[in-house]
């Protein structure tokens, strides 16, 4: 059983790391601010979500598990909102974007 759980954690964390990598590559390679913003918010949120999913079976205690999920939900919520606000800043500074 532990082997299966460990395997699950490894796969999920690797998936999360892959999405972080995708997000960073997007940050480096995308041509303008709005596309970079897309890479940052989508990939990093998904990466964090997979990492949280991977760590969930390993923690002992529901409170800690709840904290993990809460951290992810907070990042999702604030990521989505701040992305909108940053996009407006970008648009106001460069209306052609």
């Amino acid at each position, binding site marked *: 059983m532990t082997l299966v759980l460990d395997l699950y954690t490894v796969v999920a964390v690797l998936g999360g790391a892959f999405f972080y990598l995708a997000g960073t590559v997007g940050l480096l390679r995308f041509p303008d601010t709005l596309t970079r913003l897309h890479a940052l918010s989508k990939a990093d949120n998904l990466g964090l979500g997979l990492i949280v999913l991977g760590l969930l079976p390993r923690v002992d205690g529901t409170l800690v598990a709840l904290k993990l999920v809460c951290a992810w939900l907070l990042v999702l919520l604030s990521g989505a909102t*701040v992305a909108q606000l940053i996009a407006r800043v970008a648009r106001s500074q460069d209306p052609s974007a």
Partner: protein
Amino acid sequence: MTTFLLAAAAFVLLLTAVGLKPLLRARGAADRIMAVQLLGSGGIGALLLFAEGTERYTAIDVSLTLALLAAFVSVALAKSARRLDATAPATDSADRQ
């Protein structure tokens, strides 16, 4: 497993570092505010992995605080950036943000 989790944490931190470089060097305010977001989500990912890898779950509290404060700072920055650009009607020359 511990080594794997710590390695994953280091990897996420490395990606964050690599992603910071173009954001901080960029000209626009939007790119720069994204740096705060990036450090927020990357730092939280690394912290969660680090917490699980070293079995010190108190680091998760730090990630919750990071999530809240990174969001707060990003909102303040975005609001400030827009006010500095827009020709806002001056309600008071001594006002801030």
